């Protein structure tokens, strides 16, 4: 029997046990035996405290754990509280290194299908690697969708100024420039979706593709933005996350994030080309207290990595970057590390050129994305150098300015997207 048929039969079995529900909680897992118990208990507690009058089901989708997570889920299934239905994805060979929970896209698909077929008004996706999560998490994410009419509630965590640089310099400004919504953390691993958004997502032909596999979090957000759904950020304070069971390197992480973003750009080109400017989104809740754990980088090493890339990867970069952009990178490389800087406009054009390169495939896409790492390290080096003595709010203002530059440079992207040969060397 094919994997799809097995999953379909598993969903049919789940529906036999639980034919209807108001809330479906999707919980993907992969080697999370240590933390999944705490997360399930927090979910059950949160549902009992705030939504005791509504029926709910937790769908725990395991991607092929080998550390006893499946046994742990079976134990949790026997415990009292909100029913927990386990689903096991077959085919361990499908597990590939991933910066989130492996096979999360498949888990999201199953949770959405369950939500549609049970007639749920809310589909809540939570991460199984949260350490000692609060039971209030369910309420914080669910209330905006169930009570306030939002379609997507995204988490907004307190983070150190250097934490999540890929989000700060690539994902956040690009998504904002493309879709015109000022979302600060578009790649939340915990989020709540309305039934309308679930319906839209299920209607898209991406399930089974790399975009769904590696970029389900970004894709869900861009679907909501592109479809004009109501989005809010829920301020959740600090996030405590367990170390990943299968850590991966930065190059692979960057490749997956960029690949998902660029693929989304190609698929939604007809949507984002019509968008101008940006609108703020609603912030729900109060900013949490406490200081995020510090993240430190040596900017000299980062700048050196950029220079190494410039010395060796020019022939690859020249296939995608406009000649003027390449020239400016050369100029920046000549600066000493203590004065090294990459202007926002230059950085923005580098990313836009790479997105176009991804679309036109002048070289293998995997190679193209791998060639981006030294550039990213260069941006990070410049940012760390400039912001080393700044406060978190000053760093935030700097990222906000970068977002504005992305918006102002969008005509450049559109021009190149529509006439790719015009700037070709």
């Amino acid at each position, binding site marked *: 029997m094919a994997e799809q048929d097995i999953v379909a039969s598993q969903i049919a079995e789940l529906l036999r046990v639980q034919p209807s529900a108001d809330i479906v909680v999707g919980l993907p897992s992969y080697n999370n035996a240590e933390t999944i118990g705490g997360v399930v208990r927090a979910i059950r507690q949160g549902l009992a405290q705030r939504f005791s009058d509504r029926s709910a089901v937790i769908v725990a989708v395991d991607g092929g754990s080998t550390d006893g997570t499946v046994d742990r889920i079976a134990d949790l299934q026997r415990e009292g509280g909100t029913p927990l239905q386990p689903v096991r994805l077959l085919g361990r060979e499908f597990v590939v290194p991933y*910066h989130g929970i492996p096979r999360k896209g498949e888990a999201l698909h199953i949770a959405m299908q369950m939500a549609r077929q049970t007639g749920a008004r809310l589909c809540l996706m939570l991460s199984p690697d949260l350490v000692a999560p609060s039971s209030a998490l369910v309420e914080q994410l669910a209330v905006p969708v169930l009570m306030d009419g939002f379609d997507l509630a995204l988490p907004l965590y307190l983070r150190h100024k250097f*934490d*999540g*640089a*890929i*989000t700060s310099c690539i994902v956040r400004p690009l998504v904002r420039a493309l879709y015109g919504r000022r979302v600060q953390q578009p*790649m939340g691993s915990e989020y709540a979706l309305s039934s309308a958004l679930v319906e839209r997502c299920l209607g898209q032909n991406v399930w089974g593709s790399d975009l769904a596999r590696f970029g389900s979090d970004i894709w869900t957000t861009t679907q909501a933005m592109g479809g004009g759904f109501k989005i809010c950020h829920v301020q959740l304070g600090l996030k405590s*996350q367990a*170390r*990943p069971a299968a*850590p*991966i*390197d*930065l*190059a*692979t*992480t*960057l490749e997956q*994030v960029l690949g998902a973003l660029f693929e989304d750009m190609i698929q939604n080109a007809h949507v984002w080309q019509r968008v101008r400017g940006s609108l703020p989104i609603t912030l729900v809740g109060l900013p949490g207290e406490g200081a995020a754990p510090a*993240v430190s980088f040596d900017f000299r090493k980062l700048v*050196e*990595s950029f220079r*190494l*890339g410039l*010395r*060796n*990867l020019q022939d*690859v970069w020249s296939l995608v970057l406009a000649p003027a952009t390449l020239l400016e990178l050369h100029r920046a490389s000549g600066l000493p590390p203590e004065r090294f800087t990459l202007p926002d406009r230059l950085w923005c054009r580098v990313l836009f050129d790479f997105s176009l390169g991804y679309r036109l*495939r*002048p*070289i*293998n*896409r995997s*190679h193209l994305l*791998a*060639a981006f*790492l*030294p550039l990213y390290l260069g941006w990070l080096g410049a940012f760390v150098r400039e912001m080393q003595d700044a406060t978190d709010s000053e760093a935030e203002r700097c990222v906000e300015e970068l977002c504005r530059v992305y918006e102002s440079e969008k005509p450049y992207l559109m021009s190149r997207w529509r006439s790719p040969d015009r700037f070709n060397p």
Partner: protein
Amino acid sequence: MWQNIEDTVSASLERVLGSLAGLLPSLIALLLVLLVSMLLAWMIRLVLRRALRGIKFDTRMEHWGFSAVAELSPGKSPTRLVCRIVSWSVVLLGLLVGLVAVRVRFTSQLLLHLFEYMPRLMVGLLVLFAGSLLARFAARGVLLRAVNMGIHSARIISEIVKWLLMVVAYAMALDQLGIGGDIVKIAFALFFGGVVLALALALGLGSRDAVSRAWEKQQNEPPPKEDDALRHV
């Protein structure tokens, strides 16, 4: 005397013209076959291009991992490459058929040998082409990986990988073509063995201190944090 010269010249002319007249039908047949083959090639090219574009051949080649083919193709399009190869093959075939029609003994013998040699030549060229693609692809992959790992001699490593693969491809192609016989195999074995030995010696003797320093540095440095990548997302 003039009469003799005139007779001789006219006899020669008659012979040449007679030969030409005898060859004329064959030459016309050659031209005709060439024209038909060119027309056929053009039509096949047209149909093939439409069919390949219909099945999104360029995109499929990229998905199947043959993006390096695009780089070597005219206009970066494997569809164009396939169309050109097929159409020129048809024209070449037409030329060969036309030459047979000329019925020149030398040409026939040459064609016979050429036809016998053709499969080996094709396989040899294919090996060379595939080897070249593989070498370029692997070299770029190694270069990117090495740069991302912060290795300063990334370019040298990448060039070594490329040329080792190219040498293997050339040796295989020459072996397939039957050129050089055992000399190619022996030379290749000597070259390859020599390169490996030279690298081993260079690393063992020349770079002993550098390797030692790098090893010590690695031992003294704290291990990288495993979840560093997560901090970037």
